[in-house]
């Protein structure tokens, strides 16, 4: 019964999406409110049907209904409830179904918030969204069916992949990633609508920026959570390996970050319209490329789903979407005319342009490094891999240059500036840069890139805090307001600006933490017998012994390590090596001791409980915790930008002042 109902819901969602796309494109030509109302109804219908199909699958997973093929594939009676729910996206068919869920919610929300606005664009946008939705419903109806009927169901199933069960971050990282990946469909639809309509007006930039920012926030969090998971689980001591699928998640983030910046310039100056739209299109295409990478079996990675037949189908969609974008851009980009020319010279405008070029250069660097092994193998039938050295050598200078711009850009005034203005804007923050570089030097930084990161980081931090503080100080000085009231008014009137600087502050901290953690750590690999100890940094580590712990799904050999510092015992850490029944190789579980300034990270290389012998990889990783903290700052800042500013009519003059800024912020 459940499989039949599930298949019916999916077929109906395919019908709703296809019909909706057709109606929407037809409506776009007529441009009537009634036609838009109809295409919106189809969007809601699609969302309702695909959400219902997801709920049905969750129900089947919880009820352990093994007559549903997907449940038979990933379900198990022995897993806890949270794992049963998480199983929804743990394997191929379910992950596509979940994609539909996220897309349904996005499409419904984007259609609803614009129900009475932007009539000239919205039907086009809905047409594009529902075309994408139709493709994913088609996948679910054909090559990746989750609701096949199992005629004689088994009593129990195998459960999801063991790696997905061993850390709670695994339950959180995929939904955030989908929130990012799938969400880029919405700005893609809006940008396509601007091209199809042949204009991109000021008013329409607001929904474009809002709906670009939402998936950007999810993507930012997802990328860092992925690194966090790798750090806590995989045991090699780092958080980023330039794995093809990590790269796949970074690529759309880079272009989307560039697009957020160029959209700001478009909004302020009416320039770069075609460029902004191109970046949005590219972000979407890169998400589909990433989806292809994880599901085609072409790339090897911890993220790869098992080999499947849907690779070619996704590739056809990628090709179709790419042809659509290139043709549309070529045909219509000339209609999105700039309203005025850019001001040349040293100005904030110019820095925005350089920022965009750097982000695009970064994207190409990562894309080339990811795809290059495929090129070599296809042309010369020889295997090769592009490793860390390439990516680090390329990414570090670009990252440092971006950090430099994060300081210099906001320090410069908009438009033309005199040499004296430029000097007085650029020189003072350098003092803070030098100060932070000296702090780094005192802390032992010798790598020139790290020192440069300290310098530019200090510079950018100065500029960022100054930009946050100056308007507050001005209100306090000129109007005699209290500090709290001044802060409140500043964030009400320029919420997006304040939010952007909070994000910048987080980004500065993150970049310093990345530089420090990757160049200033210490590590040792040692072989120990029971009772032996060794020194690492200011820690003394002693191997107390190893014991085998048998659990139903695995056999863990746990090593007990006593950590002490200056003669005082701090903690007993217990890194382990686990053997899962269905795995070829044992999987380690590292132990991490986090403190404000550094992590002590212990990972078992080999352990023998009988002989009480241990091979241990021990690392001191400075400032790693700051990366996770900085992510929360960036996320909080960008979510703050989305919070609408409420008018307070009782306040008279102040409220009247707040209206224009408030209107701008509520739409962004």
């Amino acid at each position, binding site marked *: 019964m459940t499989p039949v109902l599930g298949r019916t819901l999916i077929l109906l969602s395919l019908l709703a999406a296809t019909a909706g796309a057709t109606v929407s494109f037809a409506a776009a030509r007529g441009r009537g409110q009634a036609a838009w109302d109809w295409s919106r109804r189809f969007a809601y219908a699609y969302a309702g049907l695909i959400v219902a199909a997801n709920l049905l699958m969750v129900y089947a997973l919880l009820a352990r209904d093994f007559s549903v093929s997907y449940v038979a594939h990933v379900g198990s009676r022995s897993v806890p409830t949270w794992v049963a729910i998480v199983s929804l996206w743990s394997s191929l068919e379910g992950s596509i179904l979940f994609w539909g869920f996220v897309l349904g919610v996005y499409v419904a929300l984007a259609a609803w918030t614009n129900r009475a606005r932007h009539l000239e664009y919205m039907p086009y946008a809905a047409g594009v969204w529902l075309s994408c939705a139709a493709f994913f419903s088609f996948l679910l109806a054909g090559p990746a069916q989750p609701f096949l009927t199992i005629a004689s169901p088994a009593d129990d199933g195998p459960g999801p992949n063991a790696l997905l069960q061993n850390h709670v971050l695994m339950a959180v990282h995929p939904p955030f990633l989908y929130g990012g990946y799938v969400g880029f469909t919405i700005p893609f639809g809006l940008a396509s609508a601007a091209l199809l309509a042949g204009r991109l007006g000021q008013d329409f930039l607001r929904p474009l920026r809002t709906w670009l920012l939402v998936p950007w926030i999810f993507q930012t969090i997802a990328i860092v959570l992925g690194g966090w998971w790798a750090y806590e689980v995989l045991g090699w001591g780092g958080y980023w390996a330039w794995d093809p699928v990590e790269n796949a998640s970074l690529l759309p983030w880079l272009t989307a970050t560039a697009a957020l910046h160029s959209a700001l310039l478009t909004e302020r100056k009416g320039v770069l319209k075609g460029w902004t739209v191109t970046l949005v299109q590219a972000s979407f295409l890169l998400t589909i490329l990433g989806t*292809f990478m994880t599901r*085609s*079996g*072409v*790339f*090897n*990675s911890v993220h*790869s789903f098992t*080999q499947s037949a849907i*690779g*070619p189908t996704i*590739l056809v969609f*990628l*090709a179709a979407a*790419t*042809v659509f*974008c*290139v*043709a549309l*851009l*070529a*045909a219509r*980009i*000339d209609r999105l005319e700039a309203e005025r020319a850019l001001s040349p010279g040293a100005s904030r405008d110019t820095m925005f342009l350089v920022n965009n070029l750097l982000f695009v250069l970064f994207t190409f660097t990562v894309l080339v490094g990811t*795809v290059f092994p*495929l*090129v070599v*193998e*296809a042309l010369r039938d020889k*295997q090769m891999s592009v490793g860390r050295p390439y990516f680090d050598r390329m990414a570090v200078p670009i990252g440092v240059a971006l950090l430099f711009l994060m300081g210099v850009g906001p320090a410069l005034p908009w438009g033309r500036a005199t040499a004296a203005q430029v000097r007085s804007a650029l020189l003072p923050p350098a003092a803070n840069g030098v100060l932070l570089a000296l702090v780094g030097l005192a802390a032992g930084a010798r790598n020139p890139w790290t020192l440069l990161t300290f310098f530019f980081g200090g510079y950018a931090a100065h500029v960022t805090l100054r930009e946050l503080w100056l308007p507050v100080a001005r209100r306090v000085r000129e109007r005699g307001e209290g500090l709290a009231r001044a802060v409140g008014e500043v964030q009400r009137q320029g919420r997006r600006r304040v939010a952007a600087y909070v994000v910048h502050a987080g980004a500065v901290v993150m970049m310093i933490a990345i530089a420090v953690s990757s160049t200033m750590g210490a590590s040792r690999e040692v072989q120990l017998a029971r009772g032996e100890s060794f020194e690492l940094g200011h820690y003394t580590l002693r191997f107390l012994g190893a014991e085998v712990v048998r659990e139903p799904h695995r056999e863990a050999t746990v090593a007990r390590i006593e950590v002490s510092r200056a003669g005082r015992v701090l903690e007993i850490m217990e890194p382990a090596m686990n*053997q899962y*029944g*269905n*795995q*070829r*190789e044992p999987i380690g579980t590292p132990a991490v001791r986090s403190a404000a300034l550094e992590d002590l990270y212990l990972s078992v290389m080999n352990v023998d409980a*009988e002989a009480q012998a241990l091979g241990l990889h021990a690392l001191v990783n400075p400032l790693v915790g700051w990366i996770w903290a900085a992510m929360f700052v960036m996320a909080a800042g960008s979510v703050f930008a989305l919070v609408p500013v409420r008018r307070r009519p009782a306040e008279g003059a102040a409220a009247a002042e707040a209206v224009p800024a408030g209107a701008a912020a509520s739409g962004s």
Partner: protein
Amino acid sequence: MNRKVLGFGVALVVPLLAILVVNLGRDPQRIDSPLIGRPAPPFSLAPVGGGEPLTLDKLRGRPAVLNFWATWCAPCYEEHPVLQASARTLGPDVQFVGIVYEDQEENVRSYLRSQGSAYPNFMDAGGRAAIAYGVSGVPETYFISPDGAIVDKFSGPLDARSLADRVARTRAARSASR
């Protein structure tokens, strides 16, 4: 129509899509061994249950199948019957050798008692042979020609078909080398 945008877009997108199409269906798990076509690294291995050590020289003159395995490895358990059946049918024409990786001899003996074995097994003390052959995990199987060159390598559990194909190729390498 903006020809610059069109030309740039096509120049960017067509090669990328082409390379993805060409690579569809490739197996990303496959890692070519640099040892293929080269002389097999020498080894000296103690037989399970004691006796004369086995060296590579003793395998010369016949094609050999070296299977690295362990009792703690579930896929090895899966492929065990396939190897036994093949060793029995091919008899003395092909020499099958089991090399036990990271394991206790006691476990191996009780495993072989319960599962049976049609060919000799050897302990790889300190994993020296595994390191010399570049074993990335068990099970992993190497196919050695009669003149002592590595013809092929297979990672993961063998099925009857993949095993038969590779044994046939290893035997063909004999006629080529003569």
